């Protein structure tokens, strides 16, 4: 009897040990990511905090670091997202609705689906080349705000479609059936039942995709967004610059004072991204309560 108990105890203590080790391993896995991020953030804040003043928002780029600001870049980024948001929302959610609700589940649909998933992983520079060929040269939109926004729309579309599809798929079958039972058409069902139930997930996906677009540089460099722009775009056909391009230019200069300026620029950009992500969370909570 006691022999049996001893063996049992030993086994239990072994399992507990194993549990403890794995627990520590998982904590380590989590903290490595967090520590790296914190180190980066602290480093950037320390470098950039000194230059984080109003001039950064109100001044145009300059050869003198003390005088330089990123007004044109901040405004360029905001305009670009404002143009992108409605276009990518309509196209992305429209495609998701088609694929989930209307399209027959056959080989062609599966093929389209496979393509979209693949496109979501294509390097962003490829979209830049595409944008250069189609919008800048093909449609002669030149290096305008519109070209930039359309190129970025292409970049985020697959992400939006996939996340919107997932949100739509999560809507229980019963809701659709209830709607059909009342005699609703397909569109009435989608509009009155499916979309309201899935909108929180869709909006989260859209906002996260848009915040990805804010941080992208490569496609815009490819289509020729500029570095020194000392004016604000006055129409969607005007030239523009965006924050990551301005930051990259400052980092690649020899003077340390420009590197600090770049750090302040990064702080501004990160604050903007955090705000967007918070608004995604708020929107999601707000709408999910209404259902």
């Amino acid at each position, binding site marked *: 009897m006691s022999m049996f108990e001893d063996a049992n105890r030993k086994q239990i203590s072994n399992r507990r040990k194993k549990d403890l080790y794995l627990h520590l391993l998982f904590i380590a896995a989590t903290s490595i990511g967090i520590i790296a991020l914190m180190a980066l953030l602290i480093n950037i804040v320390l470098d950039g905090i000194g230059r984080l003043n109003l001039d950064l928002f109100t001044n145009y780029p300059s050869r003198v670091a003390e005088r330089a600001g990123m007004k044109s870049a901040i405004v360029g980024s905001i305009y670009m997202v404002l143009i992108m948001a409605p276009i990518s929302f309509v196209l992305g959610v429209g495609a998701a609705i088609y694929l989930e609700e209307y399209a027959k589940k056959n080989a062609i649909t599966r093929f389209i689906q496979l393509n979209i998933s693949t496109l979501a992983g294509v390097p962003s520079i490829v979209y830049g080349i595409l944008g250069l060929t189609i919008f800048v040269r093909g449609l002669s939109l030149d290096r305008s705000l519109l070209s930039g926004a359309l190129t970025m729309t292409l970049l985020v579309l697959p992400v939006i479609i996939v996340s919107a599809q997932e949100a739509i798929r999560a809507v229980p079958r019963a809701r659709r059936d209830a709607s059909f039972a009342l005699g609703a058409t397909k569109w009435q069902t989608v509009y009155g039942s499916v979309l309201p139930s899935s909108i929180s997930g869709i909006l989260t996906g859209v906002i996260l995709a848009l915040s990805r677009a804010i941080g992208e540089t490569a496609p815009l460099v490819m289509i*020729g967004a500029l570095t020194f722009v000392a004016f604000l*775009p006055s129409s969607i056909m005007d030239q523009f610059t965006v924050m990551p391009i301005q930051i990259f230019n400052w980092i690649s200069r020899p003077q340390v004072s420009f590197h600090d300026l770049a750090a302040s620029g990064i702080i501004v950009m990160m604050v903007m991204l955090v705000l967007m992500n918070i608004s995604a969370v708020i929107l999601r909570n707000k709408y999910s309560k209404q259902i």
Partner: protein
Amino acid sequence: MNKLGKRLMTLTVIALVLTLLSACGGNSKDNGEAALSGTINIDGSSTVFPMTEAIAEEFSAAHKDVRVSVGTSGTGSGFKRFARGETELSNASRPIKEEEAKAAKDNGIDYQELTVAYDGLAIVVNKDNDWVDKLTLDELKKIYEPDSKVKTWADVREGWPATELRIYSPGSEHGTFDYFTEAINGESKAMRNDKQITFSADTNAIVQGVSGDSTAIGYFGYSFFEENQDKLKLIPVDNGTATVTPSPETVKDGSYTPLSRPLLVYVDKAKLSTPEVKAFVEFYLENAGAIAPEVGYVPLPDEKYTEQLEQLK
């Protein structure tokens, strides 16, 4: 549930309206004397960029209605756009190549080359490197030439330590790379490419690399050395007639050959007839001398600027 749909619509409409508003707004006009207006598009070398940016900054302050934009897509890409007539001016850290000139000519674009400043290429090693006193052009070529046999410092010159040599160079998108390969290896874009050499698009990464590695060697524009003097050791270059250390003086008087280079701006001659481009180019040549040292470059002697101004007329 329909409320939600309406809200969504409202959101979309607001976003659209904002877009349109932004499209119409922001057109404040400064009604001074017969003010210049129009746009000037400039692209090209990122080396010449700080120079042109500074000029554009000053010019924009004086002429608020002229919209000057400057890109940094690189000397080669800049020439491509220039040859398509997309830009009025093109920055270049090397002279235009035959095929690029031909492409421009085929599109009916006639250009004028302007020299706006000089830049020296600094050869640097780590601070702890106490054996290199100077390098000859042959030794540099031995290090950087295609299929180079140099593995250690001892391979460069007898008596130097047999520690592995780690080599840094700006990437091939840089005009600096083109210029160096032409000057040292005798052929543009010809350089060794093996595991001993690291190409970097970001010059600051080369500064980091060389300052953190006791057996490294690298090269880049003199302004990057000037900003990092405490971290790097500058190597004098023996060009056969003299051993010269790069400095604003030796670059300016031309003794630091062949590693000092002119910074160039190409102007589309047809566009030069518009008052804003003409004013910009004149402004450039009149102020380049004062601006160059501010952004880390070496100005030409004054008479060279006046000469070029005369040629434009």
